[in-house]
């Protein structure tokens, strides 16, 4: 055994060093979730009481790590933040709220195992998430059989169409985004478009909608190109588009790749406007694309332009609050994805506050929710609409001088 110890000692020493280094250097970025939030919402003494009794359990499954971590992390952070806030305010009817978060790594198999664990071992009352459409589709069968309400943070229309008894979703749909874009293009008298879409689930769903709605909007898709989420250069695809008579490029993707598309468009000195999907409505897109972001037009939820909204907008106060709380707690601007989780958690919490403390009651309550102002929009659910938004959840936004600017 001494031989083994001898062989391992450099590793052990290194590990110690690594921990030290992480403590010294990594502090600002460490996911110290708990501490800052308590500061945000101090438990006001006297008014609210420490929640007691059996906790009300919600399961949260998000792609915290893996390729979709840019979605999953703000979602998980938001869920943790809400849990803290609600418990600091005295919980739900005096009972503490517990959100048990599991990482899917963006993988279907992992997601399914997480759901089984939450449903059968933790016995949660409802599940929020997953972050990705594929992961959601992979667990629908299971939650339907187990009869657990699921409020998904993924956008694919297959999730709620056809309606599944136990499944709801909060993100604005691709169909609505395309409707808004096409409406805008019609106003500009544009007829020929080029589609540059990611070959991910998100990109494919976007392309489907672009193709489906084009004829009705009087638009012709003259070029169709794709890119992978791991691609580092899209000039080849854009050069092909440049060779056509398209009047506008519509890019559909999430993560760093749309920034690269914007940069490559600038590099090739393409004259036609670039339109993006709502998937880039976060500060990192502008940061990544730099000057190339200017002039990009996209449909987006109201969160990023909250300050520019008229004061009578039902979401305005909420959006500003959420943006501030999130930024104070995590040191970075809030984004749409965190908003999806906010909506999902709060829909369940609202149901619990109304006295729904078993799975069926929560489901029934969510299904009857109307006029619920969330981050993504104003939700109206019904027995045949488990997707609660409409194209009005979007506004058209242009990036001007590196800032989101409301058009219309």
């Amino acid at each position, binding site marked *: 055994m001494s031989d083994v110890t001898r*062989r*391992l000692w*450099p*590793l052990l020493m*290194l590990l110690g060093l*690594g921990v030290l280094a*992480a403590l010294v*250097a*990594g502090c*600002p*970025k*460490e*996911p110290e979730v708990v501490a800052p939030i308590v500061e945000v919402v101090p438990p006001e003494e006297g008014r609210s009481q420490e929640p007691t009794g059996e906790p009300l359990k919600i399961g949260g499954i998000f792609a915290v*790590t*893996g*390729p979709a*971590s*840019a979605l*999953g*992390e703000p979602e998980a952070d938001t869920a943790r933040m809400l849990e803290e806030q609600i418990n600091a305010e005295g919980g739900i009817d005096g009972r503490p709220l517990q959100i048990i978060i599991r990482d899917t790594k963006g993988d279907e198999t992992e997601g399914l195992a997480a759901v089984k664990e939450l449903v059968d071992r933790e016995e949660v009352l409802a599940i929020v998430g997953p972050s990705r459409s594929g992961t959601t589709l992979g667990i629908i069968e299971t939650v339907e059989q187990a009869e657990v309400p699921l409020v998904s943070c993924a956008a694919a229309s297959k999730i709620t169409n056809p309606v599944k008894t136990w499944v709801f979703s909060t993100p604005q749909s691709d169909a609505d985004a395309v409707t808004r874009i096409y409406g805008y293009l019609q106003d500009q008298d544009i007829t020929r478009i080029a589609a540059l879409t990611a*070959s991910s689930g998100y990109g494919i769903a976007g392309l489907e909608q672009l193709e489906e709605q084009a004829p009705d909007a009087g638009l012709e898709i003259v070029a169709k*190109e*794709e*890119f*992978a989420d*791991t*691609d*580092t*250069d899209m*000039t*080849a*695809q854009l*050069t*092909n588009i*440049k*060779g056509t008579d398209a009047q506008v490029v519509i890019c559909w993707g999430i*993560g*760093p790749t749309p*920034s*690269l598309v914007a*940069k490559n468009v*600038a*590099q*090739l*000195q393409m004259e036609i406007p670039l339109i993006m999907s709502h998937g880039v409505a976060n500060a*990192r897109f502008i*940061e*990544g694309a*730099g*000057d*190339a972001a200017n002039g990009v037009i996209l449909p987006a939820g109201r969160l990023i332009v909250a300050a520019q909204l008229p004061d009578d907008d039902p979401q305005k106060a909420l959006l500003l609050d959420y943006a501030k709380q999130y930024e104070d707690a995590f040191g*970075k601007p809030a984004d749409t994805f965190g908003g999806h989780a906010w909506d999902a958690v709060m829909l369940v919490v609202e149901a619990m506050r109304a006295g729904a403390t078993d799975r069926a009651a929560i489901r029934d309550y969510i299904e009857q929710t109307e006029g619920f102002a969330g981050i993504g929009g104003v939700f109206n659910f019904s027995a045949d609409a488990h997707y609660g938004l409409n194209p009005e959840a979007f506004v058209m936004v242009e990036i001007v001088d590196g800032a989101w600017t409301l058009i219309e």
Partner: protein
Amino acid sequence: MTLAEQIWQFFLSGLTTGGTYALIALGFSLVYNATGVINFAQGEFVMLGGMITAASMTAWGLPLWSAALIGIAGTTLVGIALDRAAIRPARGASIVVLIIITVGASIFIRGVAGIIWGPDERVVPAFSGEAPIGIFGANITPQSLWVLGATLVTAIAMWLTFEYTVIGKAMRACAINPQAARLCGIELSRMISWSLALAAAIGAIAGIVLAPITMTQYNVGTMLGLKGFCAAMLGGLGNGLGAIAGGLLLGVLEALGAGLISSQYKDAIAFVVLIAVLLVRPSGILGGRRGGEE
């Protein structure tokens, strides 16, 4: 735009991507020559180079060049640490075991990077502006020239090292015949440390010059590593010149494939080419001779 112009644009774009593949492939070849190991953590060196540079720029407000130096130095240290902590203790184990150890190390490095820097992509500003440069009708960014320049300079520096320095010659000797090298008094384990340090530094350089073009993120290492590995195989594993040729060729083929055949199958094209080449010339396009003899 005429077809010829388009092809010219594809070619130039491909060269840029190929330059980074070439640098990564060089790292694979170096470590392979010294140890016979395919170091699957090579991609993580690329990630670390970019991430450390980006992080030290934002955290300490350092200018680009000093941040880049920190990036290279930091990554080199990780390379040496990888040798000391993971590869050296497993000396004599089978190739598969060593592969798994490097895979484990790469997962570990990626995980730690994710914890320290979070999942968001980081931006490194372009070294000399973003104004596109037109070359006979095709546009490239100034950063592309930096990538190609870095590839060229690194390649020449490597050649000089192996040809004219004692350490370089010793490393070559170890690659050709470890037994004989040891008899001549060359300490094999030190050479392995050197080769990992060099591979890490080259990976970091690739990561730093690439970061302004693609941004960088804690998880970019995997795919870049695979592509670099593919390039190294294509050129002939263990052959420095082959690594560079393989990298550039792969980049150009990918761009041409994406532009002319199908952008959807771009990632597959690289590997189809690899398999085809392996079947015709198993030792790669410039293979045949083993070990950095060029």
